[in-house]
């Protein structure tokens, strides 16, 4: 008796009714090729399943829990695309805050990262948007209380996020001015939000004088992520001494 490969696949997936299953098993006894093909299907299934199973062990990101628990779920959640967030139709504050943690950077980063040089302050590494070079150094070393007024990077607030990592806001005032928020991970400073719009450019010039120097997207992201109060100068210095490890 011969079987199509779809039947053997269904056998491997335990999808056959009892009579067909019995017929396959009877045929297997006389034709080793059938058993070999079934084993192949089972091996592929097992390989795929066990590789992706590891994802179940990862901690669920706080922003997803937050999205489920937020009291007023934003309607039209399909609009959560970074470019849209930068447009005129900005959601009201509570929804904006709730989703700010997610408004990353894929597309924004695409604009910055894929610049021909490829060596800017923000780069794509292992699927993450990371601070690099001067910006990364400033995030690691620069204290808000002691920074040169004319330096390329100005650090704003530093704080612990709800998931325990250290995050810092920054303004970058080189040819392409921008402001953003980065959080310390094992592999470096992950950029969570970047705003390269005019407000950010303006902010970079008068960063510490202005009453509300950071772009709204960055402020909202701080509000969504922060646990407790921003670090004071002493806590900031202590965190730096620990290399921003939680």
């Amino acid at each position, binding site marked *: 008796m011969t079987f199509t490969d779809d039947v053997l696949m269904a056998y491997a997936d335990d999808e056959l009714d009892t009579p067909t299953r019995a017929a396959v098993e009877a045929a297997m006894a006389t034709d080793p090729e059938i058993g070999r093909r079934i084993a*192949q299907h089972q091996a592929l299934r097992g390989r795929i*399943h066990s590789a992706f199973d590891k994802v*179940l062990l990862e901690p669920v990101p706080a922003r997803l829990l937050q999205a489920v628990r937020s009291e007023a779920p934003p309607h039209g959640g399909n609009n959560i695309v970074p470019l849209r967030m930068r447009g005129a139709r900005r959601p009201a504050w509570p929804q904006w805050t709730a989703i700010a943690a*997610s408004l990353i950077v894929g597309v924004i980063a695409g604009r910055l990262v894929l610049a021909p040089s490829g060596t800017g302050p923000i780069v794509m*590494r292992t699927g993450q948007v990371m601070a690099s070079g001067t910006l990364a150094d400033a995030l690691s070393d620069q204290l808000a209380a002691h920074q040169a007024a004319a330096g390329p990077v100005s650090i704003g607030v530093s704080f612990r996020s709800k998931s325990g990592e250290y995050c810092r806001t920054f303004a970058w005032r080189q040819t392409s001015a921008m402001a953003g928020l980065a959080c310390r991970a094992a592999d470096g400073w992950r950029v969570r939000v970047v705003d390269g719009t005019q407000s950010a450019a303006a902010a970079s010039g008068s960063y510490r004088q202005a009453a509300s120097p950071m772009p709204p997207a960055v402020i909202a992201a701080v509000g969504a992520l922060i646990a407790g109060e921003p670090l004071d100068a002493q806590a900031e210095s202590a965190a730096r001494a620990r290399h921003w490890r939680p």
Partner: protein
Amino acid sequence: MVVTVVVRSRSMDSSGEDLRDHIIELLPRLRRFARSLARNAQDADDLVQITAERALAHAAQLRPDHSVAGWLFGILRNAWIDEGRSRRRRGLLLEPEDLAERVADPAAGADQELLCLQSALSQLPEEQRLAVALVLVEGFSYKEAAAIMGIPVGTLTSRLGRAREALQSLLSETPGAPS
């Protein structure tokens, strides 16, 4: 009449809370499913977030006889398809070097086996990839997977068969392949 309204609105409130609990419970599986579709973990979690938000916004569409899991996976599937279309429209970006960089960076400690499978999956047509994601990654039955994809079981089976054949040949020369 008033009583009816009150009772209904109460039951909707409580089912809203139930739905949140259901979604939270399913978040790890939704993340795994999204990871088998999207290019990287960030995009995958974006899909999960869109799914949660759409589900909460459209909770009224969930009928009592629906499986919550099937409904949520269906929303995620639609979100992924929408996202793919809009990405193609924008002509973006990030895709080729994305995977290449991750594979090329051993310092990432990335799971090479997972990357290898993701890379093979990404070469399948959308509908075959969904069949693999639902049946082989998530362990849905053919019937459940077909319902989530809105296709007959026979169509699901043939897509799954073609997908497996393609994967066998894509993976046959990589380490870890079954002998």
